[in-house]
């Protein structure tokens, strides 16, 4: 069922990449109509007629604290949750583990150790991220801990023998939607501050569907047979940050570790 779609996607990618080579080489942008059969997107496009995702984006909401529906607690705003269908379908042992994580979250959340946030958590941290879009690679730079991802659109296969905090991402355009498969994520990252977690067989399929120039519908399908009873999906809106001359700043998390450590030890500060 998946295969025909993937094949069509690959063919489209190839065809458009051919046109793009010319556009990149200084000619006027091609006038060929975009492949927008089922798309209502009418925002700007790149020279290869893809939706132009270049720019700085950010998710609003409370998924960073808890991707499930939750009431407010001290320092944590309430939220409806981003998990489609409500609760995450944990296996019983995994639900117990999640609850234990929640109890220990102030020490156990990997983000508080300044580890890279992983995928999809990087997307909905309360920090902006910047997309740089080229035909073969999409770079995403995150303000938090200067994490990055490079999404390969060149048809190359996953690196599956290693683990990466931010995973190994291979993407393709399906019409106007950018679809990214990420694997090799390891088992050390969480989905949120509430202890929601995964194993090393996690596969994340993200779908960035542009709604207009300033909004992306974002869906991340979570597939991890070691932890969940079935694949499940979270979805949210990604907003384009429109402030003039905005650029990413620093949250150099590791610096803040050393600031704490050096205080009173003669270092600076």
């Amino acid at each position, binding site marked *: 069922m998946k295969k025909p779609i993937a094949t069509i996607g690959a063919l489209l990618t190839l065809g458009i990449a051919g046109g793009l080579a010319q*556009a*990149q*080489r*200084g000619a006027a*942008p091609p006038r060929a109509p975009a492949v927008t059969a089922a798309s209502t997107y009418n925002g700007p496009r*790149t*020279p290869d007629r893809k939706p132009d995702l*270049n720019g700085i984006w950010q998710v609003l909401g409370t998924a*960073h604290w808890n991707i499930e529906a939750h009431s407010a607690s001290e320092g944590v705003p309430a939220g409806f949750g981003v998990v489609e269908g409500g609760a995450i379908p944990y296996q019983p042992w995994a639900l117990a583990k999640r609850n234990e994580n929640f109890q220990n979250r*102030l*020490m156990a*959340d990997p*983000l*508080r*150790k*300044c*580890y*890279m946030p992983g995928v999809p958590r990087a997307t909905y*941290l*309360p*920090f902006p991220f*910047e997309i*740089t879009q*080229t035909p073969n*690679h999409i*770079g995403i*730079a995150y303000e938090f*801990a*200067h*994490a*990055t991802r*490079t999404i390969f659109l060149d048809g*190359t296969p996953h*690196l599956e023998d*290693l683990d*990466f*905090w*931010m995973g190994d991402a291979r993407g393709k355009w399906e019409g106007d939607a950018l679809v990214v498969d990420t694997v090799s994520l390891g088992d*050390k990252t969480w989905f949120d*501050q509430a202890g929601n977690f995964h194993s090393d067989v996690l596969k994340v399929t993200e779908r960035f569907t542009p709604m207009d120039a300033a909004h992306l519908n974002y869906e991340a399908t979570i597939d991890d047979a070691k932890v969940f009873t079935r694949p499940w999906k979270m979805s949210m809106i990604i907003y384009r940050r429109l402030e003039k*001359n905005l*650029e*990413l*700043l*620093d949250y*150099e*998390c*590791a*610096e803040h*570790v*050393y*600031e*704490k*450590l*050096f205080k009173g*030890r*003669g*270092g*600076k*500060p």
Partner: protein
Amino acid sequence: MRTSTTIAGLLLVVLDLPAIGGAQDGRGAAPASYPPYTRPASTFVPQRTADGQPDISGLYVAIPLPRGIETPLVPLSNRAPNRANSEFSYSLNERPKLPEGAQVRPVGVDPPDGKIPLTPEALARRKEIIANQEKIEHLDGRVLCLAPGVPRSTIPAPVVGYQIFQKPGYVVIFYEQSHLYRTIPIDGRPPPDPNIRKAMGVSRGRWEGNVLVVEVTNFTNNLSNNWVIGAISATPGVPAESLTTGHGIPHSNQYRVTERYTPIDANTIHYEARLEDPKVFTQPWTIAYYAFARAPKGYVPVEYACFEGNDKNLLLMTNTDITGIRVSVP
């Protein structure tokens, strides 16, 4: 492999030219007899991106620096072979070649004596740092996995890949080293408020013909270990004015860098950085070298997670346990 042997051989010849039998601390050494540095004259015209920039995008790897990298101050006999420098960085990749006719010389090109023009205070500070390497407050910021700043992130390290992206109005550089990145606007916007500080500085670029010129300002200096310039490890007997010493060149909040990225041919980018900081240097000074070679076909940049797991390293090196420290995240 063969390439590197050739370059090393060439270097030996060049390095033999100056009278390098001076005092061990370099102070008595004769001035270098390298020819004055001249910017490479490039006739290469890159293709253009869709928005008309010279197209330098793509994957690159660092070109190994000449072994006598930074300065003629250090007698050749003091330069330990295979110390932790770029030598071991290339075991997995073919060593990139220097372009035809490249001038091989120390990286420090101005002032021509190869000394870093440190103020007396900065020199004393650096000596103190070098003498106290076992203390975590004086440990190399790169060992702490702090962002090494500019130009240090462009000095070859064990992780040598770069990815240059271009999009309308911007050049973006991803560094394989510690997943660093810089976004360089080329739209003429001014630098931000002085209260804005970034570990990699804030970059403002422009194209001068085919040369990308980047002014970098607004650097962080909130930790004693933010060293924006240096090689990797200290060599015994090297004077503190030498870049070879590697460690502990501090900077103030007035530090600024002017970088020039010059495409030499389709495969090579020459790099020049002029460093200014009136609180640390008595005059601006300049380093220059062939920095980037287009990566071999099939090169895949991978994540270099530096800080994750570094606690064990810090425990071993400095007997400091950071495993209990947590940082508030919004």
